[in-house]
């Protein structure tokens, strides 16, 4: 992440941050038994992907892609469009997942994965 002169290049910093967020999200998603926490881990994972997509769209010295007089350099609008869609689909996924969690809580009285598995298979 840090080059030999000791300064952090932006690209390394962003990619390193993306990887860290992805790994944390994945770990929370897989390792934690609590269903709400799993969904939050999924959210962290998603935001890392947003960052991964948006970061290459930035052009040094560019401005946001809103056409105006006197501006010649714009950042790339395409990743923004894709990630807008991804955010909205992500919140739809979250809503559906949370509804499932509420239903599971109604049925089993718990939102811990272990306890649910125990109740399904008491032997």
């Amino acid at each position, binding site marked *: 992440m840090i080059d030999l002169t000791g300064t952090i290049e*932006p*690209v390394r910093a962003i*990619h390193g941050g*993306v*990887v*860290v967020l*992805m*790994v*944390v999200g*994945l*770990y929370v998603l*897989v390792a934690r038994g*609590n269903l*709400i*926490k799993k969904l*939050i*881990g999924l*959210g962290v994972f998603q*935001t890392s992907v*947003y*960052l991964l997509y*948006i*970061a*290459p*769209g*930035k052009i*040094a*010295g*560019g*401005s*946001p*892609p809103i*056409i105006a007089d006197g501006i010649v350099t*714009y950042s*790339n*609008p*395409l*990743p*923004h*469009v894709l990630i*807008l*869609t991804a*955010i*909205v*689909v992500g*919140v*739809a996924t*979250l*809503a*559906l997942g*949370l*509804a*499932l969690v*509420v*239903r599971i809580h*109604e049925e089993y009285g718990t*939102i*811990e994965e*272990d*306890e649910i598995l125990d109740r399904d298979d008491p032997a």
Partner: protein
Amino acid sequence: MAIARLRNLFALVALGGIYSFMMALALLALDAVDVSMTEASVGAGISTVLLLGTLYLTHIHEAPPTRLALFPLAMSIVTGVALLYGVAHLPPFGDPSTPMHRHVAPRYLNDVVRETGVPNAVTAVLASYRGFDTLGEATVIFTAGIGVMVLLRRRRRAPRDDKQGTGS
């Protein structure tokens, strides 16, 4: 990191909101103003409300982990190493000569005002050039909304049936 450690889910949700807001600021710094606004309203706003609503209906405290999660930890680390190897070969940051900036985006940026009359290129691409994509997106939200309604309506009907059962 704190998200992985915290066991009080209420604090966790609050932290998630803060995290989302920080992410919105980062996106703003990367010139993605539309995405930043969406993330701030949807990620920090709606998601937090949804999570709080779910917490209200379920438990606030997470049970302590019963076993050491070695396999997921190892798997996450392996994934991280693979990702680091992958991102090492991505093009440099902020360079306008990378392939993604030379292919489709300039055409949108050059012709967007003449063709659609909308100065915001993101809006124009989302609603005009790729309107069918957005229609599909709306379909996804609609489906998710129906799913939530179906799940939660059964939940509300179930206690009423129980009450009738005990009453008779």
